């Protein structure tokens, strides 16, 4: 499924979840996500993240509602806990695949959603630069150590150098883009035109309708 479509469906369902106070619905969302993850073949490390990441915010809201809440607070405590998991597992369907689908996602944003190419390619540049950031910080520290200065992580000098290199880099990115003919607001051609398959639309509509049907019995 096209990642932008997936993103849209997930956003709509997540938005609806915000207004639904039902543990059952949340559990169903988690269960459906789990089935999809099984099909996607996650690595064990990703499973671990999915289980551990929501623990802190989930238990945080559970405890505060359970012990300090008023009104229907016991029910709400369970709703909040399950909701945090539902959000994360639902969102994971998009984010965990994003590494593989990044290029097509950005291309869809540019070609189908008509987002400004300046924004899209600046994002591409930044994402390509990310792996270099850690190495850069390390290099900055070592380069200063060679001059007899140790830059600790609380020292503003380190951040000054990091920001400076980020500014330099963004300038050269802009110059590089322009020198390769990039023009703000101009037409571009596309080697591969992104099309959203009809099947994607069908799956998206079925998913959304199924979710609405789930809400019909008003069991929440």
């Amino acid at each position, binding site marked *: 499924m096209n990642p932008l479509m997936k993103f849209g469906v997930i956003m709509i369902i997540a938005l609806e979840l915000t207004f639904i106070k039902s543990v059952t619905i949340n559990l169903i969302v988690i269960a459906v996500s789990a089935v999809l993850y099984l099909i996607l073949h996650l690595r064990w490390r990703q499973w671990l993240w999915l289980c551990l990441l929501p623990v802190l915010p989930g238990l945080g809201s559970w405890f505060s509602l359970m012990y300090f809440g008023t009104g229907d607070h016991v029910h709400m405590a369970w709703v909040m806990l399950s909701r945090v998991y539902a959000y994360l597992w639902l969102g994971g369907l998009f984010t965990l695949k994003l590494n593989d689908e990044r290029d097509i996602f950005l291309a869809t944003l540019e070609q189908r959603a008509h987002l400004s190419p300046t924004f899209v*390619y600046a994002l*591409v*540049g930044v994402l*390509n630069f990310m*792996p*270099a950031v850690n190495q850069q910080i*390390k*290099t*900055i520290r*070592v*380069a*200063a*150590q*060679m*001059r*007899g*200065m*140790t830059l600790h992580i609380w020292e503003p*000098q380190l951040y000054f150098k990091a920001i*400076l*290199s980020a500014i*330099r*880099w963004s*300038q*050269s*990115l*802009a*110059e*590089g*883009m*322009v*020198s*390769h*003919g*990039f*023009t703000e607001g*101009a*037409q*571009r*051609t*596309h*080697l*591969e*035109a992104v099309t959203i398959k009809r099947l994607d639309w069908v799956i998206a509509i079925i998913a959304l309708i199924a979710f609405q049907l789930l809400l019909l019995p008003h069991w929440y």
Partner: protein
Amino acid sequence: MTELVVQQVNFAYNDATVLRDVSLTMQPGSLNLLVGPSGSGKSTLLKLLAGLYPTFSGGKLTGQLTLDGYEIHDIVPFQRVAHIGYLFQNPTRQFVMKTPFEELRFSLENLQVAPEDMTSRIEDALTRVGMRDFMWHDLMTLSGGEKQKVALAAVLAADSHYLLLDEPFANVDPTSRLQLIQLIKAYQQSGKTILIADHDWSGYTDVIDDVFVMADGGLHTASTAEKTTILSQLPTQPAVHTTQPDAVIGDVVLDQVTLTNGDRPLLSKTSLTIPNAKRTLITGPNGVGKSTLFSALVKLYPYGGQILYQNQSLTKRRIAQHVRDVALVFQNAEQQFVAMTMAEELAQAQQMSRFPELWTSAVLDDVLTRLNLAHVRDHIVYQLSGGQQKKLQVLLMLMTGTPVLLFDEPLAGLDSVSQAHLLAIIAEITTQQAQTVVMISHQLHAVTDWFDYHLQFEDQALTFRGDAS
């Protein structure tokens, strides 16, 4: 044929004049050389011609700088690039995308090339520069020279009438350099006009039509006599005179060391000792792993086997402690600055020096004058020209006085006078401070008699070259 007009161009930042009354006429279909000392304004002129300045620099531009009657910097980039191609001095950060193929695709999409022609144009351009096999490699893992070839491919694919190159071979080994020159020559023969700013014109002396000389922001066309003098200044095949080391004593020892870049092997099991208090040159083709070897020696890059310093394994040495004994003079000078102005940097280095008694104010004044840096002492280090930054960085690292100093291309981008001064100062000071010098350099004509030993890095091996001693 499009017409590029440069008449009485002046350019200044605030009150600092960079270009003074510059006029330039190039014969259609010619190959031209732009020469001049570091910091004389060559890069600025090229970036103005490419339309990148003043948009990206600020500053005030007056005079006529037009393409077919239109102000160059007013032409929208996708139309301008179709007429004027530009190759950056620093190959590392001019790319937007992850791989060479994507980068060229990005460029051709900007130029609104029809999708059906795109793949063949990309493959053709990458084949011409010999980078076809690297089409899907991560650009970040390519060497400086390989990146420069990809950048050239992007320009070739755009097929512009004018090609501007700013020190395109500064980080390129002699073999790749000759290949690139052949490519540029072939491009010229298809009717294009080319302007190259370079300090080292060995290898293309016979194909240059006009030489433009830049000095203090002014430009003139060299007369026939002047051109002959300039072009004859360099031997075409520099021979480096060194001897074979015997019974080497050294603190830095490689024991069965291996290096890889991704899945590409760079160095297969190598054992050797770096001679103490001597000057050793490392040469080898682009991408062979010279800079990577230096990174490994300062613990910034993983390696196999053992690297020892004074019989202690690097794995057992904390990086902060290690780099006080083995320091690297980075290719990018800015990385090594720790203060704002040159005066502050010098004060810091004086304070941190292992030999504070050597670095009196009088000595410092003398060295700064010899390096032609005395007049910019109060300037912000980040606003110095590339050449000035490099000279300052080398000086600061010499002042620190680390026992082993690794220099990664310290001469790239410097004019021959600056190179000679810098080498003399490095030799003087490292002898006084009994330092071990290891240097990567492609500027062989400048160092023919400067080194004691010569390590050739080729075919995944490091071998000492030179006559028997």
